[in-house]
């Protein structure tokens, strides 16, 4: 009874809090000081058509570096935890394989368990869609300074292509090595571009180390397309490594 009463009181409190927020909300008529600075100066200073991207990559580039680091740590921890379980499962799996071969069943080391067939629709659909999804992901992160989207979105799209590949053929093995190389190279290059910004332009991650070019063209906005391509590759590699680690633990 008291529990229910407390719950109701809590709900009423939260409700009144939100009601106060909604009822007193007045939309801003003009942009505030920071926003108007970004809105007015971005195209002129940085040559980026997409102001959101200009803020994420250049004005607040350090925060993006932090986000990428957090994602990297997550991928590393997922890999660490799952590789532990994988090592243990491989030793037990081998023992089970031995018992299976004694029973006269031929053991298959790669996939001990018989996986169900994935179906014609998924296999053919994957074959058709995979290049298109990869192309779309590359488009999203290379056009981050012109259209909505960017490195994180493009990387997630790349990872979804990877996911489709894993779904259509769960027994497929991917080289962790390639993923690791792509990921670390992109990360190091991102930081190097940032340091070049200190040496050649206004500060860390300044995009004007390259000419800003013509407004609205693909090769414009200085280093923004370069940085976002690196971020896209890095994010895509991180998500892919997580998916691959997850799918590899399946073969217990």
């Amino acid at each position: 009874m008291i529990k229910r009463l407390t719950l109701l009181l809590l709900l009423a409190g939260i409700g009144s809090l939100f009601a106060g927020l909604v009822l007193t909300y007045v939309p801003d008529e003009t942009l505030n000081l920071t926003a108007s600075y970004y809105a007015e100066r971005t195209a002129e200073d940085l040559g980026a058509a997409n102001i959101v991207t200009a803020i994420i990559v250049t004005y607040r580039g350090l925060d993006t570096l932090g986000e990428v680091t957090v994602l990297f740590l997550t991928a590393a921890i997922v890999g660490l935890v799952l590789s532990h379980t994988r090592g243990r499962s491989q030793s037990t799996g081998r023992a089970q394989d031995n018992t299976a071969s004694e029973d006269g069943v031929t053991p298959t080391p790669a996939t001990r368990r018989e996986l169900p067939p994935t179906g014609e629709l998924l296999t053919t659909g994957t074959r058709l869609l995979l290049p298109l999804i990869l192309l779309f992901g590359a488009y999203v992160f290379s056009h981050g300074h012109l259209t909505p989207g960017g490195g994180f979105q493009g990387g997630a799209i790349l990872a979804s292509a990877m996911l489709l590949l894993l779904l259509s053929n769960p027994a497929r093995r991917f080289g962790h090595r390639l993923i690791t190389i792509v990921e670390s190279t992109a990360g190091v290059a991102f930081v190097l571009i940032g340091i070049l910004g200190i040496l050649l332009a206004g500060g860390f991650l300044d995009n004007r180390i390259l000419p800003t070019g013509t407004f609205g063209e693909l090769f414009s906005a200085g280093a923004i397309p370069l940085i976002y391509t690196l971020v896209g590759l890095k994010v895509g590699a991180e998500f892919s490594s997580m998916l691959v680690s997850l799918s590899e633990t399946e073969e217990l």
Partner: protein
Amino acid sequence: MTLPIALGLLLALAMVVLAVMAMRGRRSLGISILLAGLVGLLASVMFLLLAAPDVAMTEAAIGSGLTTFLFFFVLGRVRRGEHD
């Protein structure tokens, strides 16, 4: 001006209903996961209405795509563990 607001309210209502359905999970866990993914998809439409296409893309790719896959994956593993 009023059309986006009406659409947004409708979306918000649908999201609340779907989220409650997903939480109660009357039918099965799989349907709950699908409903949660649907809430993510509607949230991305909502972000689009609020003029934030960048966030909408992230939400669609991660919130309704990869997360749903992850839930199904773990669900499958848990079920398989029960059978063994």
